[in-house]
């Protein structure tokens, strides 16, 4: 279409100015895509820290267990029969967990240090596949299924002066009231970033704990990992309909503060888009409008030789939209690949700052982005809309133009 070709060529008539304006638009768009990716990364890791280590996206246990967990309230290890197939499709993985309290002691008879600890027993293969628990190991290694292994929180290990390979005396009451005692070897020490949790938590293998605490074939909870954590509430509701004896609790009700943030999240993102693009719109408008004013004479001539106002309007609109779409695409591309790079290789900032507990979870000192459709499409669409908006005023001016006046001005 001739108009489009003229539009394209007009853009490059003043190469320097067009490049500069597009540069600005590309920069704003890329920055926006990156920021939205960063915000998502921030939220995503906040949710993961809260859910993956502790309760998964959905926490299944006996009704009321979450409120006050007791050793006796154990449920069968095999629950897959109670989960409907359509829900199963949504589930990425299940991690059974057994929870108890025990005395852990380390050192010789004369000088031994004993601390009460919360014990969680996990299926190490399921954890490796689904949760980030293994990621927290700072020294030694994660569980390998050997029944005499135990992992200690950094604070707990320091308190009982235990290190990799030290002998730990495990002393507790089994579910049948009998004494549960065993000698375990420290396989690894972990640091989850939450000091309180690290100074009172130990992790061991599920099989060993079941045998030790007389809970064979039974666990206290199942932690479901969903493909999309945001659907936790909806899937929990469907589960509750089908689970006979158990109760499914979504992470939103376990971490209300994070759920609050989620509600306002879209609002925050739109606010950010509005701010970036308001400034960008003004700048781009400046350029387009000036370019238009300069070419009033030219438009008048074109009108004189017979182009209708409507066609001229299309010309101006096409120029603006071509520029906006091109910059939008390039900007989104740059921003998206920045997000992808930071998604697969997040930058570790722990040298400058520790992690911070926040609303039950913890903010990790890493620069981490999550590319998502929304954080790519939103800026692109907004940019095209911007291109359209910026061209409206000049087009309106065009309709009020009287060719003779413009010609004389030339």
């Amino acid at each position, binding site marked *: 279409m001739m108009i489009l070709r003229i539009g394209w060529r007009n853009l490059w008539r003043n190469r320097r100015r067009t490049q500069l304006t597009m540069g600005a638009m590309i920069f704003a768009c890329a920055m926006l895509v990156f920021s939205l990716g960063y915000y998502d990364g921030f939220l995503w890791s906040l949710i993961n820290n809260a859910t993956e280590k502790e309760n998964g996206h959905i926490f299944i246990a006996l009704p009321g267990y979450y409120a006050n967990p007791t050793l*006796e309230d154990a449920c069968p290890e095999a629950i897959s029969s109670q989960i409907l197939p359509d829900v199963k499709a949504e589930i990425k993985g299940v991690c059974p967990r057994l929870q108890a309290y025990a*005395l852990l*002691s380390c050192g010789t*008879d004369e000088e*031994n240090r*004993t*601390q*009460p600890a919360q014990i969680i027993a996990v299926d190490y293969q399921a954890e490796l596949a689904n949760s980030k628990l293994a990621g927290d190991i700072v020294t030694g290694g994660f569980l390998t299924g050997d029944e005499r292994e135990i992992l200690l929180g950094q604070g707990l290990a320091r308190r009982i002066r235990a290190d990799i390979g030290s002998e730990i*005396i495990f*002393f507790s*009451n089994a*579910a*049948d*009231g*009998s*004494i549960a*005692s*065993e*000698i375990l070897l420290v396989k690894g020490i972990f640091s989850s970033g939450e000091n309180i949790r690290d100074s009172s938590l130990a992790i061991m293998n599920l099989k060993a704990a079941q045998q030790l605490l007389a809970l064979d074939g039974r666990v206290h909870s199942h932690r479901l990992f969903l493909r999309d954590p945001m659907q936790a509430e909806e899937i929990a509701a469907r589960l509750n309909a089908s689970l006979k004896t158990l109760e499914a609790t979504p992470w939103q009700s376990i971490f209300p503060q994070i759920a609050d943030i989620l509600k306002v999240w879209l609002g925050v993102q739109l606010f950010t888009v509005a701010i970036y693009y308001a400034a960008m719109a003004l700048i781009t408008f400046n350029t387009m409008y000036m370019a238009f004013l300069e070419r009033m004479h030219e438009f008048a001539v074109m009108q004189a030789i017979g182009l209708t106002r409507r066609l001229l309007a299309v010309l101006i609109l096409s120029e603006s939209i071509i520029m906006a779409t091109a910059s939008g695409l390039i900007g989104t591309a740059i921003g998206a690949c920045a997000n992808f790079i930071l998604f697969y290789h997040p930058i570790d900032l722990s040298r400058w700052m520790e992690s911070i507990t926040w609303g039950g979870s913890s903010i990790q000192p890493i620069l981490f982005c999550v590319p998502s459709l929304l954080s790519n499409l939103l800026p692109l669409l907004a940019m095209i809309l911007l291109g359209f908006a910026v061209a409206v005023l000049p087009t309106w001016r065009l309709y009020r133009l009287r060719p003779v006046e413009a010609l004389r001005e030339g």
Partner: protein
Amino acid sequence: MKHFLLAMLMTASMAWAGDSGGQASGSSELDAVALVRAVETQYQGERSHGKMRMHIKTRSWNRMLELEMWSEGREKLLTRILAPVKERGTCTLKVDDDIWNYISRIDRLIKIPSSLMGDSWMGSHLTNDDLVKENKVDKLYQLAITERVGKDVTITGKPLPDAAVVWGKIVYKIDTASLTPLLVEYYDEEDVKVRSMVFSEFKQIEQRWLPMIARIVPEDKPGEFTEMQYLEIDFSVELPRDLFSIKSLRNR
């Protein structure tokens, strides 16, 4: 030879040992405080050795334990599990305020930290704290005889203003004839019974009257109890000097 009853059977409770001289002390109008103090001083330096069966029934399990015990006064106590075989050899040693658990199966010793005093002992309704308790009842409670039915006397103890005890009120029922406790009840500050200890099957051993069975019942957990029954007990026993020590635990 003076007689006394094992302190560990009762928490902040009192036991009475009549002396062999027959009824003299039973019938005398000793007031509550003298009654209690007399009991308290009985235990200084008394030694015992015996076997006991413990039946623990809770909401989720039902357990039978057989224990061998040694004690010296109220300060020192040693128990060793005889049955079930899985836990055979596990010992608990209490000296003054400290408690150790020795687990024979893994040949290891654990000292119970102060923050775990509230935990249950061996899964029973007794807590570590009950074992350690050697506070002087008469120093913590305002004791008064509140009822006298024939030879059964009821003494009520109101805690003194700054006494560090959790109960609002304690009630003892004592058979002054055999000078043995019938029951002990613990109330909170709204006079709601929280916990009670009932004694039964009184027998005379070596001129001492002794309740052979003590049953602890937590009121807020219906159907649950811990029952301790003496199978045999011997007071005139010579105990090795270093019996109550960590070293001796190992070579049991």
